[in-house]
């Protein structure tokens, strides 16, 4: 039987909320359970309000939780923000210090009885984190105390927690280990016999699973693609992509270089790629603005380039630490004039890994830019997934070596007759690397002839544009068509249609809707359509698949960008839309409720 528990731990930035969350996730992982964890935080380093929302299940999870089964209120604000929506059977763990305590380290923001006013739940467990932490040997262990308490109510055997703490703090030595074990025990004991009413079957379990974020999956996908150069400029929520490869420098031949700005980052990536090293840069929308110019030079010189755009709400600085999907049309149309490019929008960490690999492959095969769309939700959520680290023994580079250079038609007798842009049926010209032999590789962002010389000739311009655009036919065929799922052909059927990171919540919503009484009563059926490979869109193939289907677009932007794109390419007009623009991720029930509203 499926058991789902959602734990929400709220407090200030700097209180180690995320640390508690990952400790929980790790223990769950060691018990063979599945987790889906999101961090919600403000654009500040200390204070304010942040929380970790950890959903735990004994089956695969594809979407985050929402209303907590167990609320851990490290501070008053957490209590105030959540009490109205708690369920009657929710369990509340309250950081409740005795404020009259003559203790200098008393947490002024800890909760009092007054904070409980209006709370729908009666199941309240009060513990004093700071006091217990100090008793354990140091205020610094308050997080571990909290974790101990949560594990108790979850019914986790203490030994499992202990084992993880030993492993986790091994590097820091015996005393740190013991300190944390003591703290955990204090918290565990503080729970007394209180247990949450739903319980898992806890036992150490070895699995082939990993807990991973989209950002890390993107980084590892790049490493698996033999990407060696990562120029970047820090920007939330994209920095995590680069951060995830940093630990491998020293172990793999990679260079991570912080650029002076995003313009430099993208141009450095282009320079390295031109010289023969696979390169990737990562940014968010604001940085992508600054990269649009570089996108054009990559396109014009037909230099492979991979960019990750990890989206957040805008315009401008917007909500830097939140999530949204508002860059799709921008990314597809970015840079002056049009040119072929790939835009991929994976929906899960595992898909992200594969999409990044595909992006590198396609970008070099077609010598066009490839952009991967993430967002704060996908980039930062930690999700349990089957290990997907498939690294090919070799990567195909589509680069001429001296041998096939000699054989190549484009190279006749003399070395400088190599034509970097020779016109071919496929539109793809033989690509050689600079200074690798007798030939000379010459490229320019001006319009050019086959040899890469500037040409202002009218006919040449048409030929070269056509050459570049002629890649599109084959490129479209590289794009996977969207996943279209529905129980059976039926009248009155609606398709939840989305792209990228909303995949999980949409599928979960679909599962819920399948069983929904209201829908059944009204004879309404649901299916879903998820786009992963977005651009170039193979409209010919797509059109028959979605014609006559009623699409309900599910997107995190205000102008329904995928909906517009579908119309633009196929003429098909979507039926309705569910647009969430508050910067917080979708969760299944939200989609369910809105879908039912929409069709009523």
């Amino acid at each position: 039987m499926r058991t789902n528990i959602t734990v929400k731990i709220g407090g200030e930035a700097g209180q180690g909320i995320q640390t508690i969350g990952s400790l929980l996730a790790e223990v769950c992982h060691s018990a063979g359970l599945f987790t889906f964890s999101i961090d919600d935080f403000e654009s500040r380093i200390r204070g304010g309000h942040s929380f970790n929302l950890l959903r735990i299940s004994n089956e695969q999870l594809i979407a985050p939780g929402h209303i907590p089964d167990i609320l851990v209120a490290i501070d008053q604000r957490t209590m105030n923000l959540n009490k109205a929506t708690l369920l009657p059977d929710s369990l509340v763990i309250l950081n409740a210090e005795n404020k009259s305590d003559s203790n200098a380290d008393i947490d002024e923001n800890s909760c009092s009885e007054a904070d409980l006013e209006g709370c729908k739940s009666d199941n309240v467990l009060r513990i004093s984190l700071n006091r217990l932490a100090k008793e354990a040997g140091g205020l610094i262990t308050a997080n571990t105390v909290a974790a101990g308490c949560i594990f108790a109510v979850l019914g986790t055997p203490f030994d499992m927690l202990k084992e993880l703490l030993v492993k986790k703090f091994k590097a820091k030595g015996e005393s740190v280990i013991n300190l944390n074990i003591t703290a955990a025990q204090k918290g565990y004991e503080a729970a007394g016999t209180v247990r949450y009413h739903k319980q898992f079957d806890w036992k150490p379990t070895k699995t082939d699973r990993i807990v991973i974020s989209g950002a890390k999956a993107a980084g590892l996908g790049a490493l698996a693609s033999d990407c060696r150069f990562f120029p970047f400029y820090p920007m939330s929520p994209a920095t995590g992509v680069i951060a995830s490869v940093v630990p491998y420098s020293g172990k793999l031949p990679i260079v991570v270089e912080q650029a002076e700005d995003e313009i430099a980052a993208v141009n450095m990536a282009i320079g390295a790629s031109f010289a023969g090293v696979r390169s990737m840069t990562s940014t968010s929308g604001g940085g992508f603005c600054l990269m649009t110019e570089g996108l054009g030079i990559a396109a014009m010189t037909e230099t492979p380039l991979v960019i990750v755009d990890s989206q957040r709400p805008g315009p401008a600085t917007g909500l830097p630490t939140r999530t949204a999907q508002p860059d799709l049309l921008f990314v597809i149309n970015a840079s002056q004039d049009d040119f072929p490019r790939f835009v991929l929008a994976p929906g899960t960490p595992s898909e992200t890994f594969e999409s990044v690999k595909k992006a590198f492959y396609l970008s070099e095969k077609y010598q066009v830019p490839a952009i991967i769309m993430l967002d704060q939700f996908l980039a930062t959520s930690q999700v349990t997934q089957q290990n997907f680290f498939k690294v090919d023994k070799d990567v195909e580079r589509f680069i001429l070596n001296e041998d096939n250079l000699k054989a190549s038609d484009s190279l006749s007798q003399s070395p400088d007759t190599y034509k970097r842009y020779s016109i071919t049926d496929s539109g793809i010209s033989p690509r050689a690397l600079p200074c690798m032999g007798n030939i000379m590789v010459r490229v320019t962002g001006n319009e050019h002839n086959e040899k890469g010389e500037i040409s202002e000739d009218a006919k040449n311009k048409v030929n070269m544009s056509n050459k570049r655009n002629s890649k599109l036919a084959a490129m479209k065929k590289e794009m996977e068509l969207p996943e279209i799922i529905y129980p059976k052909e039926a009248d009155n059927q609606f398709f939840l249609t989305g792209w990228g990171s909303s995949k999980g919540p949409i599928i979960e919503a679909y599962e819920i809707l399948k069983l929904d009484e209201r829908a059944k009563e009204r004879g309404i059926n649901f299916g879903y359509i998820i786009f992963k490979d977005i651009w170039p869109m193979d409209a010919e193939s797509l059109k028959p698949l979605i014609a006559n289907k009623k699409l309900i677009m599910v997107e995190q932007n205000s102008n329904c960008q995928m909906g517009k794109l579908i119309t633009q390419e196929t003429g098909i007009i979507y039926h309705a839309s569910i647009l969430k623009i508050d910067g917080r991720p979708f969760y299944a029930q939200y989609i369910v409720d809105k879908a039912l509203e929409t069709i009523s």
Partner: protein
Amino acid sequence: MVEPKDYDNDFENKWCPGCGNFLIQKAMKQTFAELNIPPEKILFVSGIGQGGKTPHFMKGNLFHCLHGRALAVATGAKIANHDLNIVVNSGDGDCYGEGGNHFLAAIRRNIDITLLVHNNQVYGLTKGQASPTSALGMVTKLQKHGVTSSPFNPLATALGSGAGFAARGFSGEPEQLKELIKQAMNYRGFALVDILQPCVSFNKINTHQWYKDRVYDIQSIGHDPSDLAKAIMLSLEWGERIPTGLFYQKESTPFHSRIGVLQDRTLISYPFDGEKTAAVF
């Protein structure tokens, strides 16, 4: 032996007759010949502008990139393969205007490339607007009442920002220019050669003769290029007398020698081993 004419190509030259760029290009070819670097072993990276077109009119590998972005592209290429001989041809607008931020960063990064700035104190290709190095008060079609910003001082800025090699040449002193480019190419680290270059079409102030009347060779008066303080003071001199030559040179560790993984071999030269990669995940 490589000869200057090995760099000749048959692409139509598009500069104005009398343009200082011809002499700069000649000095480049001579330098490469004297250093015995054949065209297929050199990578030019250049920006947009008349100076940026230089490599089009000669042989060699070439990435002719966006206005202002040559240093960023060159940096990427050099990191990918630090065996590359990279020469960047840029303009005063390209390098100190649109590309100013990359100029500052290239100095700090000490990337081992040679930067030649064709400094004609004007935007040539776009028909004569003021550039960052244009004199205060210089009148152009767009600066009707004269330039109102004080001119950018490339050498002083470079020295202030910690550059390891900074020189000024003049297209009208080809022998000195050639030597400066040679020293720059031989320098291990980021080497700036700012080159005074008359633009016969748009800069009617800073003409060949104007420069001729003012330039003097600091080496000939015994300037010691290891003297930073003196170099900075010289870099502030501009007017009746304009110093040229090697202002400053110090030993430095180029970027690729600061990066562990590039110590033994170039980034591009590592073999890919999927299994090894998978193993460290």
